């Protein structure tokens, strides 16, 4: 069985295409088909179609960026028509020379992109502090404000009378020429957004959406990442606005209805979250819909609303889920988790010994409840340290203090001589401290491989811009992350499931996926929060072996567990907590014989 797998890995050609599922579902083929259709459209000779297709292309330029915010990061930015409006007016005003000297249209478009990027950031920033509904509301409010300003600022925007759109010179001054211009922008938008989507940034966005706590543990900084995406989406939306103004030839505030905002937003949701092809098809579909059924035009908002309700309630996965062929592929029958220590060596190497991790005098209370009451603890590299105690004794709380989720009122935490910042979970990954969670925090909609790759996010070198353009450094990052993730999956014994969606796995398998994700950091310290809960006896034995192997490669392991057998079997050092204090500590044999431990916890 093992040798068969090795054979497949050695011959890449033999691996079926479905095995390596990229983030663009179905690969590049659907995109190329769509592009071929779009290029061939002038053969119809019908300029009415040119208008519709141009509109679809422009909308997609905006939706491609918005998709990263709504579909990937899960931030409900509803009022994105505001940025379209802003881009349209900026381009038109600059091209007309109302404020500054007249500009050529393409320069005006570039300026609009810059303005849009800044505005996108400003509109998006509340998402960092506000809850979902609040953020949706502020984007709606912003949409209203922009239209009102356009109405009021008459000397620049022409108020209710409006202003001429930019005039794009030959060869873009006829219907088909302008269509090809917009199509070109749409292709660029697809490439940029697609590249971000399949990079570690795209995965990090999905992690923020579906497993925010795990994203922090993997070192993903939500503010920095979202700021990049807001800048990008704002620029794209403003470019779309400039093109929109060019298409309209004359713009008034009434052209930017809330209905448009709705179209953009619903196109993403109909398309499916975390996909690029889906929202592209959604955009085309929603643009075509009122045209195909002309009498529906007056009802289009109502139609969009009904579609929104139907999608959320009936087809939450959207188009992407319908066309995702791999979704129904059968899982291997009678599979088992078979960790392979050999892969561990290839992944971890023999790491230089890290300095010890020390907790001194940690005290943490929630209101009147003393969760930890003056705790000292030392973790050493290459040692498995067990942390046991009755429920409520402060085990998980201790782990949360080390990994930065809780800020204790007293005490210090240091790696060697360097103090670790308290209450900063996203800083731990960079210091080589990885963890798992009591309830696995996994992205159900992503594949197992992608879930594991998230663990290595901080190891990437390419910047957001490099990822967007898929420059060599990005390609190298991606190849290395994938190779590492496959090694980590081999190490925990789940490589056969790499290509499957994580929500199809069993609970016990998810526990091992979390360990694989943590191993991506090549951690100096690995914190495991009840990894054996819900595992069968045989699986617990394999888990114990795996943990021992990991520590043998120089990683210090902190094991919070209720299975006393596992603890005494594999730990080199055991600390027993009771009521937030250390009740006993030492070698397993000493602790096991400790009278108070027996009466408080182990039982006679």
């Amino acid at each position: 069985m093992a040798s068969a797998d090795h054979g497949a890995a050695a011959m890449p050609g033999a691996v079926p295409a479905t095995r390596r599922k990229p983030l663009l579902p179905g690969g590049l083929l659907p995109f190329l088909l769509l592009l071929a259709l779009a290029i061939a459209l002038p053969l119809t000779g019908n300029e009415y179609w040119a208008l519709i297709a141009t509109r679809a292309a422009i909308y997609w330029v905006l939706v491609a960026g918005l998709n990263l915010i709504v579909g990937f990061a899960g931030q409900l930015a509803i009022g994105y028509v505001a940025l379209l409006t802003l881009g349209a007016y900026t381009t038109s005003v600059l091209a007309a020379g109302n404020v500054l000297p007249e500009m050529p249209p393409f320069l005006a478009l570039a300026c609009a992109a810059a303005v849009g990027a800044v505005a996108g950031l400003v509109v998006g920033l509340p998402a960092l502090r506000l809850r979902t509904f609040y953020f949706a509301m502020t984007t709606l409010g912003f949409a209203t404000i922009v239209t009102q300003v356009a109405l009021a600022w008459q000397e620049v925007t022409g108020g209710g009378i409006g202003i001429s759109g930019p005039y794009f010179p030959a060869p873009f001054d006829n219907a088909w020429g302008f269509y090809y211009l917009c199509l070109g922008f749409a292709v660029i938008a697809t490439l940029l957004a697609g590249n971000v989507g399949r990079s570690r940034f795209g995965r990090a966005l999905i992690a923020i959406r579906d497993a925010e706590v795990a994203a922090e543990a993997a070192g993903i900084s939500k503010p920095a990442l979202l700021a990049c995406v807001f800048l990008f989406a704002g620029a794209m939306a403003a470019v779309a606005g400039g093109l929109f103004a060019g298409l309209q030839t004359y713009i008034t505030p009434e052209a930017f209805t809330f209905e448009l905002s709705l179209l953009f937003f619903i196109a993403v949701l109909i398309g499916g979250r975390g996909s690029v092809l889906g929202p592209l098809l959604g955009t085309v579909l929603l643009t075509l819909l009122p045209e195909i059924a002309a009498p529906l035009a007056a009802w289009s908002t109502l139609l969009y609303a009904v579609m929104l309700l139907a999608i959320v309630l009936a087809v939450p996965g959207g188009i992407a889920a319908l066309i995702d062929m791999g979704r129904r592929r059968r899982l291997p029958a009678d599979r088992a988790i078979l960790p392979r220590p050999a892969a561990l060596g290839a992944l971890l190497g023999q790491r230089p010994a890290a300095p010890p991790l020390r907790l001194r005098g940690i005290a943490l209370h929630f209101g009147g409840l003393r969760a930890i009451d003056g705790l000292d603890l030392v973790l050493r590299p290459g040692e498995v340290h067990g942390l046991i105690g009755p429920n409520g004794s402060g085990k998980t709380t201790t782990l949360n203090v080390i990994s930065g989720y809780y800020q204790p009122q007293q005490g210090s935490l240091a790696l060697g001589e360097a103090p670790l910042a308290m209450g900063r979970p996203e800083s731990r990954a960079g210091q080589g401290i990885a963890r798992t969670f009591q309830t696995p925090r996994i992205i159900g909609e992503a594949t197992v491989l992608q879930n594991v790759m998230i663990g290595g996010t901080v190891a990437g070198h390419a910047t957001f811009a490099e990822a967007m353009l898929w420059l060599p450094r990005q390609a190298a990052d991606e190849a290395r992350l994938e190779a590492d993730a496959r090694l980590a999956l081999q190490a925990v014994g789940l490589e056969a499931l790499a290509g499957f969606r994580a929500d199809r796995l069993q609970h016990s398998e998810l526990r091992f996926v979390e360990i694989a994700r943590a191993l991506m950091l090549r951690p100096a310290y690995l914190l495991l929060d009840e990894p054996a809960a819900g595992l069968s006896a045989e699986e617990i034995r394999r888990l114990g072996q795996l943990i021992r192997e990991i520590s043998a490669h120089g990683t210090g392991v902190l094991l919070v567990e209720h299975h006393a057998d596992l603890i005494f079997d594999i730990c080199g050092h055991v600390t027993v907590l009771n009521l937030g204090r250390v009740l006993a500590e030492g070698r397993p044999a000493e602790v096991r014989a400790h009278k108070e431990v027996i009466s408080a916890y182990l039982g006679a």
Partner: protein
Amino acid sequence: MLASILATGLAMGAVYALIGITYNTMFATSRVMSFTAGQLGMLGGVFGSLLMLRWGLPLVVALPLTLLAAALVGVVTEFVAVRPVLRSLEQHLYVLTTLAVALIIQQTTAIEWGTEPAPFPRLLGLGEGVWHEKYWLPVVACAITIGGLEYLYRRTLLGHAFIAVAEDNYAARALGLPERNLRIGSYALAGAIGALAGFAGGQLLLAFFANGPLLNFYGFIPVALGGLGNNRGAVIGGLALGLFQQAANFTVGGIFSSVAVFTLFIIVLLAAPQGLFGATASRRV
């Protein structure tokens, strides 16, 4: 001028406060912020105008009918947009479903009722100038609602049950409280309160299909400032918002006043995301 600012400011403030209470009433039993709150206010105006001006019904019949119809809309919202997504509250799907229902309400009104603002009748025919009924009716409606809710929550068994569900859903269910029926009840109540806001403020807002989003936004501000679920905070926040908005309206003009309100709102919200009167922190790990 000061008198007009005070009169309109308090009137609009009372309408915003009532919409804020509508949000809170729905939130209390379901933990859902619903985009339909503003639409219920809009419906109050449209139903009032429909019943009294088009059908010629007297006030004593029209008001109960309006509240009843809106309560029904509230219940339908609960069934269509809230119940199906309650199980996965952390995914925030309710933002999408309630938005969809709100838009369906708005567009149906636009198609059936028309897109032009329609007049709303004088209800009592009392007062002139700044003492015109259109200014004090919303304030009275707000006071009656607050008084009624206080009585309900503090003095009646039903109200205690509401509070129990709002405090701790699971514990309330474990005690055998009919949590589902109480939720339906709170959505009906919210529907009536929202419609009362639109009805009492009808002479200021008119019967206009596009009032919904406006009320949604301005009714949400007092909730955000006062803290979720805090009705007293909503009333203080609502009245303050109304006065601030009208003062800005009279001094710098309509459009810039809405920019001012929006800017102030964002700044306050970023500085105090939990609201000025509310404070909660939740455990994440």
